[in-house]
């Protein structure tokens, strides 16, 4: 039976590497598709709004654990043989795009209507109205919530263990199974998560405070 030494710590840090990688994949993929979801959710097209509303409801209404599972094995079941990485990337992208889409929809809708009207009156078209006028303001409004979700996502990557990723939590579980000190190991794992998430949370809170003073 091993004790917790440098080897084990190093093993945890190896797991951390995957945690970070998974987070980035989810955040970037989710960011790109989340933008599309947000745009569809605020579009004039009724069907587009309906479909994205349903999409968001499904992904916000089921545990991430199940989403990972269903995507990972469901995709394989319909005969597509895809790499684990790709499957996880798809699952996190779907998950994150639903959440980010909803957050950014809120941001878009919080931009005063007069902004769109002024842009239209100037003759601008939809892509330019969105890119030049609405989205920059919407992102600023939604920044704190976006950071909040990022923290959520970091913690959520622990569930990628179900498809065999040895990220931080799973690494912790493995070390705990070798050392039989689950408490110490999980305290350590918790501390590592805290050290990553906390600065982000603080940054988010600062942005929020700044936004509030700006709107006063």
């Amino acid at each position, binding site marked *: 039976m091993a004790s917790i030494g440098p080897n084990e710590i190093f093993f945890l840090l190896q797991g951390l590497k995957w945690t970070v990688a998974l987070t980035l994949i989810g955040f970037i993929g989710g960011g790109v598709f989340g933008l599309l979801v947000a745009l569809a959710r605020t579009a004039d097209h009724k069907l587009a709004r309906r479909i994205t509303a349903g999409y968001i409801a499904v992904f916000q209404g089921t545990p991430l654990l199940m989403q990972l599972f269903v995507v990972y094995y469901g995709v394989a079941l319909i005969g597509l043989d895809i790499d684990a990485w790709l499957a996880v990337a798809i699952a996190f992208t779907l998950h994150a795009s639903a959440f980010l889409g909803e957050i950014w929809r809120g941001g878009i809708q919080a931009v005063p209507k007069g902004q769109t009207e002024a842009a239209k009156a100037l003759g601008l078209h939809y892509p330019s109205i969105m890119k030049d*006028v609405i989205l920059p303001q919407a992102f600023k409004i939604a920044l704190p919530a976006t950071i909040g979700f990022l923290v959520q996502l970091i913690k959520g990557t622990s569930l990628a263990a179900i498809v065999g990723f040895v990220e931080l939590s799973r690494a912790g579980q493995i070390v705990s199974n070798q050392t039989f000190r689950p408490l110490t190991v999980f305290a350590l794992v918790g501390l590592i998560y805290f050290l990553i998430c906390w600065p982000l949370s603080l940054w988010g809170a600062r942005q929020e405070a700044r936004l509030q003073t700006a709107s006063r």
Partner: protein
Amino acid sequence: MPQSDSAHAPLIALEGVGKWYGSYHALKNVNLTVRKGEKIVLCGPSGSGKSTLIRCINHLEEIQEGSITVEGTRLTDSGRSIDAVRREVGMVFQSFNLFPHKTIMENCILAPMRVKGMEKAKAEAVARTYLERVRILDQADKYPAQLSGGQQQRAAIARALCMEPKAMLFDEPTSALDPEMVKEVLDTMIGLARDGMTMICVTHEMGFARQVADRVVFMASGEIIEEGEPEIFFRNPQHQRTRAFLGEILAHH
């Protein structure tokens, strides 16, 4: 050339315009023609449909009946006719609606670059001309929030002018301003009027109406009740509702 032919033809023409918000009948059989260079002041009680009327002209609202024609282009739901009309018609809002994340200069060059495909240097030169004209060129690099209300409204006017429209629509451009700032904006508008800009202006500033309007149009309950030259309109309104309305405004001022 048709251009010179139409010099005396109406620049903006509304014929039998009807507009509903759901089941609410907001504009009823509105007929209005505005010739090139004409200045129209639109007044009427709150809720009478003044904003709705001018918002229909550049298709911020759709109409359900009648037709709106701007410079010979009939405004339909087609993207092309909307684009054509919006290019000819500038609009200034009560609440300025400057883009807060862009400097005044950036506010001014956005549409010329994106809509007209103008080069940045050219767009900036144009913007400088109009910012100079509304006398806030020195504020060009500030953000809207750093300006006073009067300056912001003048910036909004300059932004609309940068598209070099043939006509300008104003929706109560001074009513969100502190009293000290009303004058600077009105002066800017008077200057524009002097230079021959075609204008439709919703306002209750009767001094302004007297000074620059060719015609005052009075609306109530979605209808145009009466119109006429300012002197005649103010001295001798024909309708009971116009008289009641004028009595009320003048009492306040």
